[in-house]
């Protein structure tokens, strides 16, 4: 008996003393968020995570690029029912096809950027800052600016249409779960974007092509975003200056005509100012990737032919049958002579830039776009500089060798915009350009066989159409009653 009593006492002592330790079981693959960014190495991990999240299918990985082209009339669909159709037919409502992924993914990414900026500022306040840490902060600020720029164009009216209208909620630090933010005005968002870009500019690296900046944001990417933003705001001199900073730095080179097609099979080529890396086992969307969506139906197993070039685009390219950009087009499912299928995201040989058709980097910002922005800004500023406009335009226009170069007298805005369409096809730009320029967009609906009547929009729209911008998703309105009364008109 006594032995058992002793045993019991020993057991209970052991039990009580190891009590709390026994009940503290930490996860093996995560850390407490509060203490996860304490050094520059931690910040690097966070910025890598942010870049990866920007390559998500809900953003530059696919949907944002598709958005910019599906609605821009340079894309057409051959048959309904293949997915992402709702973008083309504008079948949006708060509850159905609201593409709420943009809202949730972008704000999730903005949280990561805000968290990183906040933690770096804490470290700097403790006196432990460094140049590397500042650089990460600059990258986060620029990324945040780009994301707000994309958000405000998705959900808010164009700056030059009504800048006092509602934009998107502006948050600059991590929020509590009880937060109920409301939409700031379009103008306020643009002001913050410009501020972030200006704050980041001096602390970013000017290196190009090094391991540290390939796949990340550098000074020139910041300038490029500034060019885009200023152009959208109609601030042409600023846009021109930003674009010229990049052009005159000579750190990037335009592709020669014989290298243009090959550039789509090359990672971090000479024009890439900001390229998001998509590796296998990382952001690779396999048969759901941007490349696969644009391949001709049945070209390879899994390709379903979701979008192809519209007649409008084909006719534009047909202006010069020797245009180098034909080299990246393949014939589409409608006929072996109609080259409407785009191979930019699989490479002309379907081997991408790493040997496989789906894990292909997304070239978010290229030098060609900077030339075209410079051309348009020079042309559109209050005292147009048509010499510059035509010089910059010709640098790209020469990719259609049979066409006569423009001159300062023959250059027109349409030439620049058409060139932009030809060059930046399937790069998520066309729709935003047409909206910014207040153009009518006419869709190639007669391309669909057999014919269907599209009920969700008319065959021609412009930026007064209420569905030109997306609705605030229903989930957001349900969870955030403060924003419920701020739904975009018409929805």
């Amino acid at each position, binding site marked *: 008996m006594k032995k058992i009593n002793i045993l019991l006492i020993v057991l209970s002592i052991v039990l009580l003393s190891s009590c709390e330790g026994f009940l503290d079981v930490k996860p093996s693959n*995560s850390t407490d968020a509060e203490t*996860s960014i304490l050094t520059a190495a931690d910040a690097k*991990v966070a910025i890598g995570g942010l870049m990866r999240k920007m390559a998500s299918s809900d953003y530059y990985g696919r949907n944002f690029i598709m958005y910019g082209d599906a609605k821009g009339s340079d894309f057409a669909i051959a048959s309904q029912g293949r997915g992402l159709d709702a973008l083309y037919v504008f079948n949006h409502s708060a509850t159905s096809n609201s593409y709420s992924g943009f809202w949730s993914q972008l704000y999730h990414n903005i*949280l990561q950027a805000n968290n990183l900026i906040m933690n770096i500022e804490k470290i700097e306040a403790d006196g432990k800052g460094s140049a590397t840490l500042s650089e990460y902060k600059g990258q986060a600020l620029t990324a945040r600016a780009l994301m707000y720029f994309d958000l405000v164009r998705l959900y808010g009216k164009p700056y030059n249409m009504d800048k006092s209208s509602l934009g998107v909620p502006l948050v600059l630090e991590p929020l509590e779960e009880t*937060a109920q933010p409301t939409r700031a005005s379009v103008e306020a968002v643009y002001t913050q974007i410009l501020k972030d870009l200006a704050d980041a500019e001096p602390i970013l690296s000017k290196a190009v092509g090094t391991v540290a900046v390939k796949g990340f944001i550098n000074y020139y990417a910041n300038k490029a975003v500034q060019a885009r933003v200023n152009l959208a705001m109609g601030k042409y001199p600023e846009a021109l200056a930003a674009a010229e900073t990049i052009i005159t730095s000579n750190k990037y080179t335009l592709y020669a005509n014989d290298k243009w097609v090959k550039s789509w099979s090359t990672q971090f080529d000479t024009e890439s100012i900001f390229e998001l890396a998509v590796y296998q086992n990382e952001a690779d969307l*396999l048969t759901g990737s941007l490349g696969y969506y644009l391949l001709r139906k049945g070209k390879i197993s899994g390709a379903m032919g979701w979008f192809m070039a519209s007649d409008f685009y084909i006719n534009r390219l047909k202006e010069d049958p020797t245009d180098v950009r034909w080299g990246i087009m393949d014939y589409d499912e409608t006929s072996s002579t109609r080259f409407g299928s785009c191979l930019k995201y699989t490479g002309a040989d379907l081997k991408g830039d790493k040997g496989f058709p789906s894990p292909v980097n997304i070239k978010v910002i290229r030098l060609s776009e900077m030339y075209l922005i410079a051309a348009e800004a020079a042309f559109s500023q209050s005292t147009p500089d048509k010499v510059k406009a035509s010089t910059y335009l010709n640098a790209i226009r020469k990719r259609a060798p049979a066409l006569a170069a423009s001159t300062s007298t023959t250059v027109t805005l349409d030439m620049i915009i058409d060139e932009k369409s030809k060059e930046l096809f399937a790069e998520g730009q066309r729709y935003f350009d047409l909206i910014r320029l207040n153009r009518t967009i006419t869709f190639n609906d007669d391309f669909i066989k057999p014919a269907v009547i599209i009920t969700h929009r008319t065959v021609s729209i412009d930026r007064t159409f209420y569905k030109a911008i997306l609705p605030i998703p229903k989930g957001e309105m349900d969870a955030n009653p403060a924003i419920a009364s701020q739904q975009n008109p018409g929805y």
Partner: protein
Amino acid sequence: MKKTILFVLSLLLVNMVMAQMKVTGRVTSSEDGSPIPYANIQVKGVRGVGATTDLEGRYAFDNLSKDAVLIFTYIGFTSQEIPVNGRAVIDVSLATDALNLEEVMVVAYGTAKKGTFTGAASVVKNDAIKDVPTLSFENALNGKVAGVQISSNSGQAGSTSSIRVRGIGSMNASNEPLYVVDGVPVVSGNVSNMGNYTSSNVMSTINPSDIESITILKDAAASSLYGSRAANGVIMITTKRGKLGRTNINFKASVGITPSFATDNYEAASTEQQVEMYYENFWNADIYAYGKTSAVASTNALKQLNNRFNKHGYTFTAPDNTVKSLTIGGDRAGKYFDWESELMRTAVYQSYDLSVSGATEASNYYTSLSYTKDMGRSVINDFDRITGRVNLTQKAGKYVDFTTNINVAKSGKTGFNDSRATGNNYFLQSRNLLWGLYWPTDYVTGLPWTARYGSYAYNAVYYNNEWENSSKTLRISANEAITVNLLPGLTFKTIFSYDNTQTNDHIYYSANHFTGAGVGGSVSEMSATNTKLVSSSTLNFNKEFAKKHNIGVLAGWEAESNRFDYQRASGTNLATSVLHTVATAGKLDATAYYAGNSMLSLLSRAEYNYDNRYYFSGSYRRDGSSKLGPAARWGNFWSVAGSWRIDKEMFMTNLDIISSLRLRGSYGVNGTLPSSNDGWRTLSTYPNKYMEMPGGGVSNIADPILSWETSYTSNIALEFGLLDQRITGTVEYFNRDSKDLLQDVPISGVTGFYSTLKNVGEINNNGIEIELSGDIIKTKDLNWSLGITASTVKSTVTKLYSGQDIIWYDPTGDDARAKFIYREGQSTLALYGLEWAGVEDETGKNVWFLNNDKTATTTVDGRPATYRYQDATEVIIGNVHPKLFGGINTELNWKGLSLSLNFNYKLGGYTYDAAGRDVSDDGYYWERIMSQNQFDNRWTPENKTASLPQRLATDMEDVNQKSSRHMHKADYLRLKNVTIGYTIPKNITNKVKISSARVYFNGTNLWTLAAYKVYDPEVNAFGSRGWEMPLGKTYTFGVEFNF
């Protein structure tokens, strides 16, 4: 003179009284005359004198008084008192104890007599489940226990089931009960890591033949000793032990076949009808929507058909421009491919069990070995399992008992995707995607057809050879216990249990398979180990005072630790299609991590009864869990209960008709832990690698004072027995309030997340449970008994965060296939969607009830309605919970023949048809096959009163809306099991030294009466049916021998 006579007489008397004699005899069972070994015989009023019968049932007393009275007792039999009356040989025949109040049942941390237990518990014995061909015992419990609903998630072999005890008490945490095997909690549920590909039910590692009894603890008094995990009930499994007497060898073998499903399940229309519907789809669109002529419409429709099917060897013509003259021509005209026979087969289930058991006074053993193989209806679905068990109890000295229960089970499963994956789910493909016009070979070249079919299916004949999967589980559970009888009435018991399940999953796609094509073939190996260590020590004290007062006290502590280890190695770009291993891959990828949780508890219980008439009990348990933060870590759980044996009261003695009557009531608190190990931590995780460098970010917003979900249950019941226990029953009412429920509270997406977990909700479940059973006929040769269980559960959401509705979706298959809403005052399974008003007779269009203030374009039954679903508002359309559910069990025994029927039924409630939009799609999908139901019930100008709308190829999304169109009545009555058994008479079996032999036939799901006949009404726990494999009709033959 008188004095002498008296003296002599008294001497004689004394002599007689003092006369010692030898008494012998034999004790047998009145049922079949077999001897009862180890029966106990006492002499009334005389201490220290007794005997036990030997293996032959024989006993002997050497020195017994002629007037002695002998008391014969044996467990399970009615005791008898027999006066010696001078007889030298007394043979006794004992009858089995029908008064099952004295039956001992296993309860939390001990045992209790059924007649005195103050909690609500139901017991199912092995006999009730032994003939059902099931891998895991829970499938055999259908309809046998009031208040318990068992639904299978899929008809695939080896899949998991869901059990709900008394409704649904949680929104975010688990609703599954706690499983306790031989006194210790065990790992339960799905252990496979292959997601939608397969679920591997770890409870199928327990061979149902090894189970002696299952006790289901339903109320707080019964289960609160399990505290923080018991809010959803506790299922206690007790495995077999040896029976006193000779060694018993038992051998069972059974084979079952399942040639077909139990009911229709989206049966497809014939190929000709499919083509007709297809033509009609486009023709209708052109005529009715675009106003074209029939010539144009026919040309377009034929063009669609030709575009899609010319490549398979068929051509189409319609000379009179209507569907009436539609003819299928071409090289393969008249021949269609039968995909059903390619993808499905007759399932075969085989099971072989061997057990050896026995017991003496000092030791008790039960060992078993079994092999089961279940080849499911899908050609690639297989499951096999070997289990071995040793249960041993050994007395060491006078005071100590050692018990060891060891179970080793190895199982392997090959499964397939049960979700709405067009490329992978063979059942979906056979009913919705594979046209008879598709062939597995190209009609021109004869080579295998490898391209994706236009309906998004793939050629299974070719691709089945290009992939494989398997899920292998090895489970070792060792349960060691020492019981020390310290003093009479004071026992110390300590149990240590090790429960280790290792699951290895393998999935391979060759470079030819559509999934592996982009990467040159892929193979993944996943290894997961679940280890549970439990150490539990209790001290139990029982004492009787003054013959009237009985006290029992239990105190103890328990520590539990769970650990989950996971590793995955994957490779792509494989060297050769012959080797399916990661080692041969060109590109490798791996991950590994571990997670766990632990718990410490103190437990105690006190019981008191007065004169075996009034019973009181109370329990208290304190749990601390690592799943909660330090601020909210410890919780208290308690219960109080009482019962009153009314039949023992004086005023009841004259009411002979009532043989037993007991009233019991209880109230208590128990809890449910959050499912996640780290729900209270705000974490940064690192899954976002970028350019082969680590990348991570903040992954959630958490509440540091996240806490238990608490359940307050009250229970009151009346147990009665009439006519000498010929009829017994229980009527019970329970009320379960669940508070502090975890909810994913929606938050603004601008915070970076769209929800966070908080304890805010409240749910109430209450209901009535009735269990009745009776012996209708009870004679020597013929026995007929009938039992009925009926339960109602009203399950209502009582409180939500800020009163805000929460819309949620059925998580099955990751498909958001049914839409529900949590709204205060409404059911916990309230279906939400548009209210469909049917089909307009004149036009064949869908009509929807508006349910809002917009202007109505039409009316139906006087209510405003519209043709555009976009204008209608979603409302609560139905409740999944039934009004009444339960089972009817009846058994007929005549001589050696037995017939038992086991029905289960459900009345009230609705099911949601998540596959309806695929097989009955109004023309939305331009290349899918439709169900016979769609063909028969679609609107045509000839059939204007049809229930389904006209098919038009205009991409109307009406059918894709969550609406009451897809909601159907759930009522059904199913003959779940019918068993016919014949025990071969003893005189024949004894000749070949077999002590008993039995042959039986069991039929499962043979007959179903359902309110809605298009698919099987036995749906999953959310009331929805999608593309998971349905249940089948199984015919099993078996034999059982005892040596």
